[in-house]
């Protein structure tokens, strides 16, 4: 059990560190690569949490496709150099206000998380079957209507991307 905790703490430290790297990075390419690292750690968490199929999807779709799209656009626009981040006049209060609000959000989440009565875990001892077969049967069974809605959403997004970037 203690080795599990050590593993979790190390993974959590990598995850938070890469997220902070995304937040503080001066170069958009580095920020994108920090985000890839964060998604990779997320995939390891999915493996720990009995979601192997989601871990693979996370690596291929998130860390693969989505982040490649980000890197492609950053390099296409040549926008990897970020300005040092000085706020123009009029929004000087924005930076301290953002930090205060962020800390307040974190404190609120911690209060909700640690003051509620812990919910008892499901008593069934064998973990639920999370193989691709079981996931697929659930996806095409009770969740078939949301699945179809999502397919329409993807179609609309594809058309939208083409229409937005076409040359007039």
């Amino acid at each position, binding site marked *: 059990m203690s080795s599990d905790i050590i593993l979790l703490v190390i993974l959590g430290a990598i995850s938070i560190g890469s997220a*902070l790297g995304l937040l503080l990075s001066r170069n958009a390419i580095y920020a994108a690569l920090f985000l890839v690292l964060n998604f990779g750690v997320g995939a390891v968490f999915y493996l720990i949490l009995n979601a192997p199929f989601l871990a693979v999807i996370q690596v291929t779709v*998130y860390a693969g496709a989505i982040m490649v799209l980000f890197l492609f656009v950053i390099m296409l626009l040549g926008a990897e150099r970020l300005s040092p981040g000085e706020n123009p006049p009029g929004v000087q209060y924005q930076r301290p206000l953002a930090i205060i609000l962020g800390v307040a959000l974190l404190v609120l989440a911690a209060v909700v998380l640690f003051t509620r009565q812990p919910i008892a875990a499901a008593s069934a001892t064998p973990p639920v079957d999370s193989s691709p077969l079981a996931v697929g049967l659930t996806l095409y069974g009770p969740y078939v209507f*949301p699945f179809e809605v999502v397919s329409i959403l993807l179609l609309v997004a594809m058309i939208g991307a083409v229409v937005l970037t076409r040359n007039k």
Partner: protein
Amino acid sequence: MDTTTFVVALSAILFTIGVLGVLLRRNAILIFMSIELMLNSANLAFVAFAHRFNQLDGQIFVFFVMTVAAAEVAVGLALIVTIFRTKRSTNVDDLSALRG
């Protein structure tokens, strides 16, 4: 502290970092990546609770969140490219006019 509590706490921290990224950074691409970070932290909480309650529904929701994230990235990056063509900038403070 058990695994669920740890992962949900980590998810809250990651979400907060994503919120700070949206509020602090002025580059549109960085803001988009912070939104991805927030969606990913929500996914982490979904999977943690699916593990806790020993059900598959949380994992199914992660699929839908990933699909919405992919659609959002496609449209959002198309918007950023279009804005960059006219404004030659990805700084959101430069986008103060409603007129294109």
